[in-house]
């Protein structure tokens, strides 16, 4: 049914518009988005709310149709054979997707039966997933009684029941407390060990993409701005990030001018009350930076030098800090 040589997921030039408010032009949710996801890998779409991540997932999961462009899952065209695609995908949408009035086990078994599993193999698979996600003890409890973290684990388990080739995780950890988030990350990280599944993850958490993704694409205004492995993207920035926090925000414009004149500093940008710049060697740039600011009577509250983070990657490619955008 699926062609082994084709990528697990492919989207080419997806465009999707929605009607705008009365009298307003249509909203362009996707504006030529293209991605390729290889089998067995985790691919993250990273971007702020409204960047078009969920729209892309909906099109790839056959829920929504693009205005133009092509998409396929394991070589099966989502527009020509949506039903073929539905057999090999699992969808964990942003909202809780378990039936609140069914127990965890019933939810899993029904999901398996819907995909044509026999009663006995659905029960066996459900038991396996319940223990893997540490939900055995809650197996006979109604899903509505689950905490946020447990409910999310159950959602992921439901999505995996029928051993899909592609699993969509649409903002899996939004709204979870830090501990539940770390737990779910560990589960997603372990997926590749147990399942032969490609994961398309959407997130607006930089650390989540950094931690989980084999490859990631930064999405902004409905298109991919840059794509690569987290390490590649950070390495491309070369050198260190120097962040200077000033005592007062009024001094920012003056300080920006001073910093851009310092040799060895580049890409100077302001983020709130702080300045950020890139340096081939942060340690060597800091002394001249500090003396320049001191000479101009600009008070500095802190200076940090760090290896580039995904936020720097985002700032570099999108032109604004992720923290401000998200």
């Amino acid at each position, binding site marked *: 049914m699926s062609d082994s040589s084709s990528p697990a997921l492919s989207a080419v030039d997806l465009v999707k518009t929605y009607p705008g408010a009365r009298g307003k032009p249509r909203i362009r949710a996707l504006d030529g988005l293209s991605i390729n996801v290889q089998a067995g890998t985790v691919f993250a779409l990273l971007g702020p709310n409204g960047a078009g991540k969920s729209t892309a997932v*909906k099109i790839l*999961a*056959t*829920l*929504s*149709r693009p205005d133009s462009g092509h998409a396929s899952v394991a070589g099966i065209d989502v527009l020509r054979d949506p*039903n073929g695609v*539905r*057999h090999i*995908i699992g*969808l*964990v*949408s*942003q*909202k*809780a*997707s*378990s*039936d*609140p*009035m*069914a127990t965890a086990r*019933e939810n899993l078994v*029904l*999901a398996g*039966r*819907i*995909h*044509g599993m*026999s*009663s006995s193999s659905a029960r066996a698979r459900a038991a396996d997933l319940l223990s893997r996600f540490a939900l055995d003890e809650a197996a006979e409890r*109604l899903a509505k009684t689950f905490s946020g973290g447990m409910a999310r684990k159950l*959602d992921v388990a*439901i*999505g995996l029941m029928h051993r899909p080739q592609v699993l969509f995780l649409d903002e899996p950890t939004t709204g979870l407390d830090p501990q539940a988030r770390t737990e779910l990350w560990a589960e997603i990280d372990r997926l590749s060990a147990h399942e032969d599944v490609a994961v398309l993850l959407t997130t607006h958490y930089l650390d989540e993409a950094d931690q989980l993704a084999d490859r990631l694409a930064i999405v902004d205004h409905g298109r991919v701005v840059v794509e690569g492995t987290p390490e590649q993207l950070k390495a491309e920035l070369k050198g260190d990030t120097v962040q200077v926090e000033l005592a007062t925000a009024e001094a920012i414009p003056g300080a920006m001018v001073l910093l851009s004149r310092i040799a060895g500093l580049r890409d100077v940008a302001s983020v709130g009350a702080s300045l950020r710049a890139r340096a081939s060697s942060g340690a060597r740039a800091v002394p001249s930076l500090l003396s320049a600011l001191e000479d101009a009577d600009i008070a500095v509250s802190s200076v940090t030098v760090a290896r580039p983070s995904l936020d720097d990657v985002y700032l570099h490619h999108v032109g604004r800090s992720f923290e401000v955008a998200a």
Partner: protein
Amino acid sequence: MSSALAEAATSTPELPARRRERGRLLQHSVYLTARSLRTLWRQPTFAAMTLIAPIIWLLLFGQLFRSVVHIPGFSTGSGSYLEFITPGVIVMTALFSSGWAGTVYIDDMNRGVMDRLLASPVRRGAMMIGTLAYQAVTTVVQTLIVFGVAYISGARFRGGVVGIVVTIVAAALISVIMASFSNALALLLRQQEALIGVSQFIVLPLQFLSSAIMDTRLSPHWVQHVARYNPVDWAVVASRQALSAGTEWGAVWPRLGFLAALAAAMAWLATRAFRSYQASI
């Protein structure tokens, strides 16, 4: 219960694809019907109310309007108002309960259940049949209970078992019609308050522009005229005829036929409404 069917459907590829497809549609419908029945079972208060409400209506209306049978020209067939109103209350119960059918879809939409099912191999038809069959099963149980209470209260139906079966079929068809309408509204409006508002707005006139609790021959002329096109009246008249002593089958079969055709058409249209929902997400 249908695991044998499931095995057969998955393990015999030489079976014609269409038949296999139909088998799967049926199977998915059964799973989803069972899911709804299980949910009802787990809400005992709600389950009890769906059974008690029609009993109260029967006894309340039966008492309240008891003397209308004495109005000259009122025809009951046998004389007791309780016997006259029993099919009326049964159809009314089917109508009112099914008006809420769409709330299941709205709950599923508010969670990710609807999206998950739409992205699974479950056909939209199975999602529709699942909720309609659940409503029909509820209606059958309600109908049997109303008959039981009517019997205890002294009502006797000369139409016998055949009359009861016709009434059950008519009530189930009304239930499918109204539930399809409610499901379609849910998919088009996608909002609980709007769904309930519109549904209640429709249900009451349908109920009163029929002979459910009043002989329409005593109503204004225009009411009689409207009732002739009202599916609720078709169901009430067919049931009442089938339950009476000298059933005029010529009044029963065409009405049942119209109800069945309308039920099929409404279910099909409601299934089409999934497109509207998907266009909105």
